[in-house]
């Protein structure tokens, strides 16, 4: 792979990670903000023991 292929690849990598630098935190923040309080845990109940 010569410079003719490497240079555009580097540029593509840069653009992709620049996009991810905004996209990933946006997904992460949206997911955390949408998180709801779960029903309070019942310490007497462990559902997996009933499987």
């Amino acid at each position, binding site marked *: *792979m010569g*410079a*003719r*292929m490497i*240079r*555009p*690849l*580097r*540029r*593509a*990598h*840069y653009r*992709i*990670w*620049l996009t*991810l*630098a905004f*996209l*990933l*935190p946006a*997904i*992460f923040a*949206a*997911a*955390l*903000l*949408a*998180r*709801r309080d*779960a029903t309070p845990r019942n310490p007497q109940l*462990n559902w*997996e*023991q009933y*499987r």
Partner: protein
Amino acid sequence: MSVSYQAVGWNRQKKIYDSVLAGGVAIYLAIFVALGVAVHPYATVETLLIRAMGTAALLLLHVILAIGPLCRLDRRFLPLLYNRRHLGVTMFVLALAHGMFSLVQFHAFGNTSILTSLFTSNTRFSSVADFPFQALGFFALLILFLMAATSHDFWLKNLSPAVWKRLHMMVYTAYALLVAHVALGALQSETSVWLSLVLAAGMATLVTLHLLAARREAPADAPAFDAGEFQTIPEGRARVVSMNGERIAVFRHEGRAYALSNVCAHQNGPLGEGKILDGCITCPWHGYQYRPETGAAPPPFTERVATFETQLRDGRVFVGGCRG
């Protein structure tokens, strides 16, 4: 696979690399399951394995994605790059096991097929909190499968390096899908702040490393061939220079410099002796025309000449690599 290719060209370094990898994964899974049993005594082995393999795969993916920029920033990391493909295949196997166990645990005991259940049991696409995150993991796994299946020199050679590289750059799509898979899935029910912090730290580390590596390489990628003073090129005309034995026409047009192959695609006429008419470089021999930005003939014509990167610095034109 052709008879002239081996599945793995084993040597001492690869054996050491893979032994460390297999040992590390085994130790991680054992510690995860042991701690899981201690902290959640009612959790089933399947549940613990699903979590162990999912987290191991995600951790390994972070390591894999960090190796490239680390090597570009510091050559001491190059030994890690040596057998990165085996890391990738191991990560895929862990992700596949995580996916298969999850499909069996959550979708195999109904009266519909596993895949039907996966895509129809939750269709709340408009909800963030209840988004069908498992489908995201499924599509990420498909991409990882394509990459693992072609992770060999046989495919690199037969698909061509350009196609192979494009295919393997889909790992970034897979990574984004997996971040969404975890954030919309596990992090919705597992509310420990540490889990969120670990994922955030992983993302931040990868983004920082890749952008730092790109920034460091930017000067080396800048056009370096000095094609002379920009102002001395007449508007709409070109200066012909020889770069690495190739004749290149550097045109001046509306305050910008454009570099193209000096050879017309029609009959090899000297494009640099032509001029720009109606926004197109026009060959002096037969009037064939090309757009300076792309080197493509205006529609309906399909001819194209190679273009090169240009940069104006201190009043001089610098020509760089071929753009195609």
